[in-house]
């Protein structure tokens, strides 16, 4: 089977990408989704606060997903559900598996990677203690409560103050559980401000910063956890131990882009984000393979996932159209060399951990290009600066920047002619 654009994953990124690809004039678009429904993780995110940017109203996760699912249906986006992609080759042959079709392959002209991310599991945290029942990732607990209708425990400690952990602190409380504490190893929370306010402060749940779990007791079921404060090198401070009786420990300790398929096919990843390195078109090192959403870098707002994925969908469509034009002109030999000729690297300076994209070809960018990034620490009154070589071309004051909230700068195509050969576009913080 042949398809022009194949999208791996039918969550918010995949849906937005499919719609944008259709809008850009490519009709032959297929989403492959391993779950039973389109919508991805939004389906279990039943709290509200989604869509403020996109729809100018507050929606719940399933409602936000439904808006995109509806548009995708209207545009006749094809989707294979209950279908697992098990391999993608470098020449874009997608191997899939499903209960009713067995194993089959699809030859794609372009691929958009939108597989999302996974929670960091207990095994990656080096927490000592037994392996009793009652330890869940926050997202697993969220699925139990919000889809299956089962409460995983009655007395809960949450390790990590990521957004899902904060959301679950409120959710478990409203379902009648007692959430005793949220422990965060860092001196600040990685979650959004409004979640700390509405999920912890509203219910009097203590957020213990610079604190971690150093022991888990209980053989069959969690009976207690031991919390301890940590020093600036994250080492437990003797004498600060506190035993907290509980039957459940939820882990909300970070999200990791899910890039097994990308790695297998030879997509180059950033060691900082764990997602593909992409250019201004959200294209990976393999021409015609694009990435967007949490598989690229973990977002905190789905609105930005949708916006980013729409760009990926559009650029994938442009790529397919260019291929077709080349075929018509019989000029296939020169295709790649011309594309990368005028790319500038995007580099990070003080206070900036990474940027998406990592390179820009001004010829291929839109009039405006959003560069997204995260900062390394909490900074008060910083200035976000953009340098072209040694020259500062943009400077913006902020009251606060924190690692939990993604930042962005918008570059203008009209400015890009100020770049000289060999220059890099540097994003950094000053006044920190």
């Amino acid at each position, binding site marked *: 089977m042949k398809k022009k654009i194949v999208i791996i994953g039918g969550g918010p990124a995949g849906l937005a990408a499919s719609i944008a690809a259709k809008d850009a004039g490519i009709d032959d678009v297929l989403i492959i989704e391993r779950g039973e429904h389109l919508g991805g993780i939004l*389906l279990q995110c039943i709290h*509200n606060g989604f869509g403020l940017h996109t729809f100018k109203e507050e929606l*719940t996760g399933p409602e936000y997903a439904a808006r995109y699912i509806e548009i995708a249906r209207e545009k006749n986006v094809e989707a294979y559900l209950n279908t697992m992609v098990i391999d993608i080759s470098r020449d874009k042959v997608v191997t899939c598996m499903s209960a009713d079709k067995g194993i089959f392959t699809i030859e794609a002209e372009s691929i958009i990677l939108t597989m999302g991310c996974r929670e960091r599991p207990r095994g990656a945290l080096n927490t000592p203690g037994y392996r009793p029942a009652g330890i869940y990732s926050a997202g697993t607990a969220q699925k139990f409560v919000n889809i299956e209708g089962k409460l995983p425990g009655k007395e809960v400690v949450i390790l990590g103050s990521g957004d899902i952990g904060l959301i679950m602190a409120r959710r478990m409380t409203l379902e009648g559980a007692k959430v005793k504490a949220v422990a965060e190893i860092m001196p600040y929370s990685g979650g959004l401000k409004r979640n700390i306010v509405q999920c912890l402060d509203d219910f009097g749940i203590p957020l213990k910063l610079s604190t971690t779990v150093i022991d888990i007791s209980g053989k069959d079921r969690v009976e207690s956890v031991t919390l301890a404060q940590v020093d600036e090198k994250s080492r437990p401070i003797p004498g600060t131990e506190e035993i907290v009786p509980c039957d459940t420990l939820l882990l909300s300790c970070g999200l990791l882009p899910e890039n097994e398929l990308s790695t297998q096919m030879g997509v180059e990843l950033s060691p900082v984000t764990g997602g593909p390195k992409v250019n201004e078109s959200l294209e990976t090192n393999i021409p015609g393979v694009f990435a967007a959403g949490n598989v690229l870098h973990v977002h905190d707002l789905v609105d930005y996932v949708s916006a980013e994925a729409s760009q990926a969908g559009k650029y994938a469509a442009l790529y397919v159209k260019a291929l077709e034009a080349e075929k018509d002109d019989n000029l296939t030999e020169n295709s790649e060399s011309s594309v990368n000729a005028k790319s500038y690297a995007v580099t990070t300076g003080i206070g900036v951990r990474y940027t998406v994209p990592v390179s820009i070809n001004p010829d291929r960018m839109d009039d405006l290009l959003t560069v997204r990034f995260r900062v390394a620490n909490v900074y008060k009154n910083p200035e976000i600066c953009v340098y072209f070589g040694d020259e500062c071309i943009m400077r913006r004051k902020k009251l606060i920047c924190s690692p939990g909230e993604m930042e962005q700068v918008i570059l203008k195509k009209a400015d890009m002619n100020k770049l000289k050969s060999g220059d890099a576009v540097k994003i950094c913080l000053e006044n920190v």
Partner: protein
Amino acid sequence: MESRTLTCIGCPMGCQVTINYDYINDTVDMDSITVTGNTCPRGREYAISEITNPTRTVTGTITLSNRDGRVAPVKTKSPIPKSKVSMVAEALMTISMEAPVKIGDVVINDICDTGVEVVVTNNIE
């Protein structure tokens, strides 16, 4: 003079907004209010609403009686008084409906005398 510092939740900025105010006969004296730290009018509105009439949208689930204990997500169609959040959450636990349900289906017309509807937030076959 009372003073509270709140994190504004009007947008991802999360401004630290400080509101100072006096009470007259147990109600906030609107003329006494001063708000600082906000970077847009929403910060002022948020701070005033948090000290005079704090509200929250409650989301939760109801049981689907014909789906083996599975649940459907619901929300209050508009924000309700913050003081009634726990009461509403408890009330939702006792409600069940038959699938299929679709977004916007009304679960209950007036939850806990708030005058606010509870509606379904997902399409479940």
